[in-house]
């Protein structure tokens, strides 16, 4: 065999040897791609040079000079461009994270509803999915912004829920706890209660694993936490004064002040992302559940499990394996789609970034930063979901 191969090799010149050709073609392709990339980059750099605005990231340290409507961190016009970008990044994280959580919850509910035997529920879920999947997100967002949230009552005609919450086209305001005198003491109590609750839950879980009869370990933990939190509230009240008070929103001057507020811009992009993505998630969930063989359900029923138990303990855990990979890509989509926030005026990374592009004239630099950030978000999401995927697999055996 070996001798034959050797003579074979000698007979065919290397440019006609398939093994070499394969490598050479790959090398050529890669080199061409790299050359094209280098050409494009150099073209860009010299182009910028010609305009007298060479590539530089120094601008990040300059004062931005513009204000941003909503921010999770301290920010003013004297903050730097870098900080403005950070404000945008945090706003993107806020809407994406909340969006993912709520889209998942709604998606699962609708997905299960679509399999319901109840004709009305089933059809309503089907309409929800079909209608929303087939409207372009941008159109939907602009509809939400201009026709829903901006058309809510004006501030002076605010819709009030017994003074606890107000609905206006400047935002939704709800009563919210604010720390006061006793908070410094109470926050440690709260932390302690949480840790104890966690420990109780873990103990109960272990017990369940040992005995084979799993108690409602999370309920145990939660009850312990709540009881301790309430008890320590009074202790803190006694030692240091009231830990928190309720901050009621009220109309002061031209706008509502106090409480927690959600701007219509945030509500528009948030609702849009949640509703739109949940329609896709619903389909994934439905497909996942249908992928679990009928025998499993029948077996569960034969064992005397209720419909809810069957779903929670038998069907859903198995469906998860099918659900998670496509779910990951929905999460990535949601995060990337959050860049449409610019259309409804929510200051996310893309919106703030494009303002900077315009005010500082640093298009290429800002675009590079934005791409880097979105890529990082996506990779982190994928990483987490892959980890979770492996995790559920192991549990499933």
């Amino acid at each position, binding site marked *: 065999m070996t001798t034959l191969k050797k003579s074979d090799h000698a007979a065919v010149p290397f440019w006609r040897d398939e093994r070499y050709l394969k490598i050479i073609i790959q090398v050529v392709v890669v080199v061409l791609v790299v050359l094209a990339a280098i050409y494009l980059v150099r073209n860009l750099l010299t182009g910028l040079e010609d305009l*007298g605005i060479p590539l530089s990231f120094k601008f990040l340290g300059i004062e931005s000079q513009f*204000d*941003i*409507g909503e921010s999770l961190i301290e920010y003013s016009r004297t903050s730097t461009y870098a900080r403005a970008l950070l404000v945008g990044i945090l706003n993107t994280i806020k809407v994406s994270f909340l969006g993912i959580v709520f889209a998942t919850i709604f998606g699962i509910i609708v997905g299960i509803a679509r399999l319901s035997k109840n004709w009305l529920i089933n059809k309503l879920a089907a309409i929800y999915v079909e209608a929303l999947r087939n409207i372009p997100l941008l159109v939907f967002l602009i509809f939400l912004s*201009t026709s829903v949230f*901006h058309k809510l009552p004006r501030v002076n005609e605010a819709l009030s829920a017994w003074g606890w919450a107000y609905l206006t086209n400047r935002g939704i305001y709800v009563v919210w706890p604010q720390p006061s005198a006793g908070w410094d003491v109470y926050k440690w109590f709260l932390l302690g209660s949480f840790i104890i609750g966690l420990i109780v839950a873990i103990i109960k879980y272990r017990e369940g694993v040992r005995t084979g009869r799993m108690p409602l370990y999370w309920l145990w933990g939660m009850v312990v936490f709540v009881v301790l939190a309430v008890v320590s509230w009074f202790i803190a009240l006694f030692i240091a004064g009231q830990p928190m008070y309720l901050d009621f929103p009220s109309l002061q*001057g031209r706008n509502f002040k106090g409480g927690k507020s959600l701007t219509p811009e945030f509500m528009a992009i948030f609702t849009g992302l949640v509703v739109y993505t949940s329609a896709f998630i619903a389909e994934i969930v439905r497909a996942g559940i249908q992928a679990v063989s009928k025998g499993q359900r029948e077996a569960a029923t034969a064992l005397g499990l209720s419909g809810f138990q069957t779903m929670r303990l038998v069907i859903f855990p198995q469906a998860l394996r099918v659900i998670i990979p496509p779910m990951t890509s929905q999460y990535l989509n949601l995060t990337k789609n959050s860049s449409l926030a610019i259309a409804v005026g929510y200051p996310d990374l893309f919106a703030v970034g*494009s*303002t900077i592009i*315009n005010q500082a004239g640093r298009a290429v630099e800002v675009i590079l930063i934005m791409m880097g950030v979105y890529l990082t978000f996506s990779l982190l999401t994928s990483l987490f979901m892959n980890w979770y995927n492996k995790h559920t697999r192991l549990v499933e055996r």
Partner: protein
Amino acid sequence: MSRKVLIVLLVLVIAALAVAACGGKQTPAPTEEAAATQPPAATEQTAAQPTEKPAEQPAAQEGEGTLATVKARGKIICGVNQAVPGFGFLQPDGSFAGFDIDFCKALSAAVFGSPDKVEYRPLNAKQRFTALQSGEIDVLIRNTTWTLTRDTELGANFAPTTFYDGQGIMVRKDSGIKTLEDLQGASICVSSGTTTELNLADQMAARGIEYTPVVFETADETTGAYLDGRCDAYTTDKSGLVARQSMFPNPEEHMILDETLSKEPLGPVVRHGDDQWFDIVKWMVFATFQAEESGVTSQNVDEMKNSDVPTIRKLLGVEGDMGQKLGLDNAWAYNIIKQVGNYAEIYDRNLGPDTVFNLPRGMNSSWKDGGLLYSPPFR
């Protein structure tokens, strides 16, 4: 398997080094580019070496002057506004009209001898500088304020100001807001990527007024939100306010505060790096000023050709080869005046007493009438 990968990597590194090595010396190229930008006479020389030209085609395109590119294309691509009536507005019939649009036409008249060799590229405030930098448009005539940062960092060159403006604030009449101070705690609607959002931040900070900016990309979104009551006030250039107000369903319910927040000199803009094109755009504007100053209008321009006032003779190309010096036909300014009009005609047609805006000339009068419009000598 890993050997293959190694080979690929090795080749890549070598290729990268080779390219990087020649990346350092970029200097020889400019000589060629310089040759290409020279006036027609020089092109014959370059044509003597036909081997080089075709290969360089795509790169040379960039180095070539805007004038040459525009002429080869047969039209000027003019970046304009589509949302501000009176200045730059896309009309229901699909055509553009307005004060800024007329300057695009004037430029076309100067270059082509016809006012309609223009392709209008509607841009919102945010898109305009990228469009200019990237060469997507030849000139930006879109209520754009001249600032130091834009003149330098944004790679823009500003032609003379065609409209001196200032930022104003619009509120609902029944809001009880009379001065800036009344805006304490207010929400204010503003378009992003404008000087407006910067001035607003500056002025409010200086006066210690707390407010919430609500920022949208286009004028339509911004005014839409204001009209829905999302904001207490709407701010932009006063000209823009008046223009947008004319489109409101009930314009009389709104008013513009007396205060002016800033200086907003608006005028045409070109890219850095093409002096000839910059000169053309500059003098196109000056020609409209000078024509008004010298009393030349689209009506009398033909008779004026016989005038013996030297400035008018030079302006209209009767003597002095002024057009040639710009790389244009000597009748360039004659064409502007004949086909589009002098400054006063352009102003009155779009903003004057016969229009809904009826904006007083104010600062936008010739220096002879106490205004700021002043053309350097045509000589």
